[in-house]
């Protein structure tokens, strides 16, 4: 069982404090949903944990060992940025073999959905296909933790469902933190929800708290949806 522990993350941009003593944790097999409005600091937090953005202060540890600049240890944590990140000039099969260990690469390449894409370059893929490949590569990598920043951003519902399925099928060995403005899908996938607000994080126990803290509006839609997602509510 691996454990990611992120504590006391502070970040100021100019005079504005965007992260103020943020705490977040995640264990293997867990999907933590990180919700928050635009500009709440979700992506900045991910980048700081990953190591690509400097913080004013941070404490990040994996299995009680403090780490700095996690991306320098590529088997610890991987980050899916909001925007496409695959090099456009390389074939998908080559990218997979570069990113994943041989046995994992073979497993990924056996997946039916990816077979027609293997000989294509990333620039030839549709947005949905590209996002599927990006998620697939990260999910089949050796990383112990994944930070998925808006994996459903700008893609068709068909691909959203496929990506959710892909995440569910391959999540056992890894811990995952996921964000998205598409909060219904994030909640549907997550075993725990954390809300980022005013530079802080709060653990959410039920959907009504999202209304209480002003993330969602109290509406009839929410009532219907709460009933539909009662299975997911049990897990919080």
């Amino acid at each position, binding site marked *: 069982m691996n454990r990611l522990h992120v504590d006391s993350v502070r970040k100021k941009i100019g005079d504005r404090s965007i992260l103020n003593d943020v705490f977040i944790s995640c264990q293997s097999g867990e999907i933590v949903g990180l919700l928050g409005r635009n500009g709440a600091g979700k992506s900045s937090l991910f980048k700081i944990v990953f190591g690509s953005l400097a913080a004013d202060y941070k404490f990040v540890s994996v299995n009680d060992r403090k780490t700095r600049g996690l*991306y320098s240890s*590529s088997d610890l944590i991987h980050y899916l940025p909001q925007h496409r990140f695959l090099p456009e000039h390389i074939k998908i099969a080559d990218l997979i073999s570069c990113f994943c260990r041989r046995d994992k690469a073979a497993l990924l390449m056996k997946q039916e959905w990816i077979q027609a894409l293997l000989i294509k370059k990333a620039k030839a893929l549709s947005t949905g296909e590209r996002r599927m490949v990006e998620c697939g590569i990260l999910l089949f990598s050796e990383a112990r933790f994944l930070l998925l920043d808006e994996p459903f951003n700008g893609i068709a519902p068909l691909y959203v469902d496929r990506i959710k399925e892909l995440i569910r099928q391959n999540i056992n060995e890894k811990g995952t933190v996921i964000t998205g403005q598409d909060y219904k899908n994030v909640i549907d996938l997550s075993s725990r929800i954390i809300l980022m607000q005013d530079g802080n994080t709060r653990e959410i126990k039920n959907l009504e708290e999202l209304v209480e803290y002003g993330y969602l509006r109290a509406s009839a839609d929410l009532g219907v949806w709460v009933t539909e997602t009662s299975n997911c509510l049990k897990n919080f």
Partner: protein
Amino acid sequence: MRIIKGLWYFYQKLIIPSLTISVVLALFSQGYVSILFGIAFSYAILTPFVHLYSYEIDSPQEYYFYYNLGLSKTTLWANTLSISTLLLIVLGLT
């Protein structure tokens, strides 16, 4: 091996644009220096600028692929600059 592959994929993107511009520049400078020297010299000088444009300006998000492989921006810049420097040293010696 993955690191070497990553560095190669990163550098691969710089080769065609750098080489194309270098050939054109070398053709213009014919008569002053040999064409091969002109190509190699221009290539060594141009590659860091192509790196700057391709990755820092045009597709900065691609850096995340290499970060995930454990390659920092410093390593990637060092890779580009060291190949160029090596090329200039070899040219200087010949």
